[in-house]
């Protein structure tokens, strides 16, 4: 294991370090809070010669992601970053570049979507991209951000995959939060991640290639689109190989999911991203008083690790999925995916849905207590209630007060 120094880094700085250690050669950028610090840092590093290649400020995220994809389709390693409105502004390009099968890495710093416009996180932005053909890794810590970016390139560039990857971190809770992060040496990083040399996507005079070509006829489209699906499913095994090598080299290991105190648990929370830390704290409290509660953190959202989820939740009495997102008119998004993964389990747990942390709203210890109560009640009665919004009486009172101040009338 090589030398790794630790430094206090924000999630954004960790992301920038990830790009730097991956030797990203091309970075098209566009500012948006809370992501901006990433591209500011990279701009500085390119400007002072710390990083080799080119940083270019584009005219929009739509242009930014197009340039990113086109450069990757020409054969260079590309990094870019955005957040929230920016990710959605680039939305059609997500599908477009995934279809080109280019292995770039896009960091998304989650931030809730307008309207109302806000700055704090939830995951509707990144989950909106879940069907696009990008793989998705969701991070809980600043360390994981750096590590996941290095791993993301290695997974993406594997000829069994060749799909772009979104590495996600929460705005504010990670983006602006410093914590100690171990930084691999450039040599170790280079040994882990060799240069990118594509054989399927390039532009050169001697071998003309028409990329991104139109097709007509459903059977042609189906073939290419389904190749993306097969590539993404390949990424499950590739992820595990890459994670194993990463652990060997750097001593930190990551699974497609993380099981926290789950083995003997009767009840489980399912969470993702930075708020999973709060969930773990709640689990510790429950455990202290002898409650058998654990937590499953979803890390690899695409490809969705069905088997890992099944294995982790097998035999639990009740499970609550805490979605920090809302599919309006449906409910929690990951709830549906976890439910689908568990459907064929012979004795599947009762599955509850909670919506919490929208727009960065705190999820307090008391709210975790309520969630446990809901699970216990469900286990006792065999009845699963409809989705529960995590929103407290105190918050409700405060909100009423604000509505009064805003001059909002009844009726």
């Amino acid at each position, binding site marked *: 294991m090589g030398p790794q120094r630790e430094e206090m880094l924000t999630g954004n700085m960790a992301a920038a370090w990830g790009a730097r250690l991956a030797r990203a050669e091309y970075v098209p950028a566009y500012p948006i809070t809370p992501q901006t610090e990433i591209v500011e840092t990279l701009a500085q590093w390119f400007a002072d010669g710390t990083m080799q290649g080119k940083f270019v400020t584009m005219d929009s995220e739509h242009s930014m992601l197009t340039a990113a994809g086109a450069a990757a389709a020409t054969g260079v390693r590309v990094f870019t970053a955005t957040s929230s409105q920016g990710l959605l502004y680039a939305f059609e390009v997500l599908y477009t570049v995934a*279809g*080109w*099968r280019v292995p770039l890495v896009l960091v998304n710093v989650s931030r809730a979507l307008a309207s109302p416009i806000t700055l704090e996180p939830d995951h509707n932005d990144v989950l909106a991209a879940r069907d696009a053909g990008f793989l998705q890794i969701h991070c809980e810590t600043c360390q994981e951000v750096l590590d996941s970016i290095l791993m993301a390139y290695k997974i993406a560039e594997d*000829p*069994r995959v*060749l799909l772009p990857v979104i590495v996600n971190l929460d705005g504010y809770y990670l983006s602006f939060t410093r914590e100690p992060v171990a930084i691999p040496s450039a040599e170790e990083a280079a040994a882990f991640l060799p240069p990118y040399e594509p*054989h*399927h*996507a390039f532009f050169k005079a001697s*071998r*003309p*290639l*028409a*990329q*991104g*070509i*139109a*097709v*007509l006829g459903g059977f042609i489209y189906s*073939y*290419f689109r*389904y*190749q993306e699906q*097969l*590539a993404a499913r*390949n990424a499950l095994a590739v992820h595990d190989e890459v994670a194993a090598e990463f652990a060997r080299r750097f001593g930190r290991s990551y699974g497609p999911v993380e099981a926290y105190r789950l083995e003997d648990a009767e009840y489980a929370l399912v969470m993702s991203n930075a708020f999973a830390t709060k969930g773990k704290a709640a689990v510790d409290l429950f455990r202290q008083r002898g409650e058998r509660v654990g937590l499953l953190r979803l890390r690899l959202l695409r490809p969705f690790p069905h088997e890992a989820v099944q294995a982790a939740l097998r035999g639990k009495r009740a499970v609550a999925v805490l979605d920090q997102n809302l599919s309006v008119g449906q409910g929690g998004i990951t709830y549906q995916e976890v439910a689908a993964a568990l459907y064929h389990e012979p004795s599947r747990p009762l599955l509850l849905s909670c919506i919490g942390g929208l727009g960065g709203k705190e999820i307090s210890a008391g709210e975790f207590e309520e969630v446990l109560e809901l699970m216990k009640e469900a286990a006792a009665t065999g009845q699963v209630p409809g989705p529960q919004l995590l929103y407290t009486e105190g918050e409700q009172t405060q909100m009423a007060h604000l509505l009064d101040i805003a001059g909002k009338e009844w009726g």
Partner: protein
Amino acid sequence: MIRVRFHGRGGHGMKTASRILGTAAFLEGFRVQDSPLYGAERRGAPITAFTRINDHPILERGIITIPDLVLVADETLLEDPLANPFLGLHAGSLLFINSPTSTQAMAEAVAARHPTPARILTGDLTALTLEKIGKAQALSATVGAAACKLAGVIGMGALEKATRKELEELGLPSPLIDRNLEAALLAFEQTPRVPLASAPPQPAPLQGLVVPVYQPPARGTPSVAAPGNIILRKTGGWRIFRPVIEYDKCNQCWICFVRCPEGAISLDEKEDPHIDYDHCKGCLICVEECPTKAVVKEREVHAW
């Protein structure tokens, strides 16, 4: 259910013909579907349109693969693999071909080149269209009328109303609509009644679903590594008129070569132009532009 398929080229008005039939059947109280099928082509290439007529709700969508009645606007389409008007014809169905050739002669030609269980009928709708409307390609009203007659369930009144409605929707001026109507009614009268029989329901054999496998990215990604291979794709069948070079009049000025948008005219070492008839779409720019009038237009030779 009566399933009708129209084959034409862009500009023949086959979408409108399918709609005239659709609207007329609708006015007669049937349940109806009509739809055109567009390919990549902007104009000129073969197009197909469909009408389904039923006395109860139609549980079908999209293209008609087993038609009871097929109308072909231009006999050059018979040979066009892209159009493939013979697809799915059965013993009960009728293949109507717009052509001056007699039914008898056409049936023999078809039997010799492309045997089909279907019955054949011809009618010279182009002549009628030329005479009444003045434009050989404006076939929507006459082909629509022939379709109405052959469908067997539509009266003159419904045809008239439907034709007027569809042409008004296209924004045609009313004198032109009147001329179309006159042509349509004549076409309706001239076309004989031929009993159609729907194809018996087909058993659906298992198709054999594959288990898709991941292919190495150089192969499994949507790109084309064979530059210029579009040459394999022929567009010569789009032509209604063919430009022909009269070499004794050609003074090797290069104009036809320069103006051809397709690059379908090349020059030999004597600087004589040669037209690539596999690809010439028949735009006739060369005919218009040749300063010595050495390029003349000829009606496409009919293959059948």
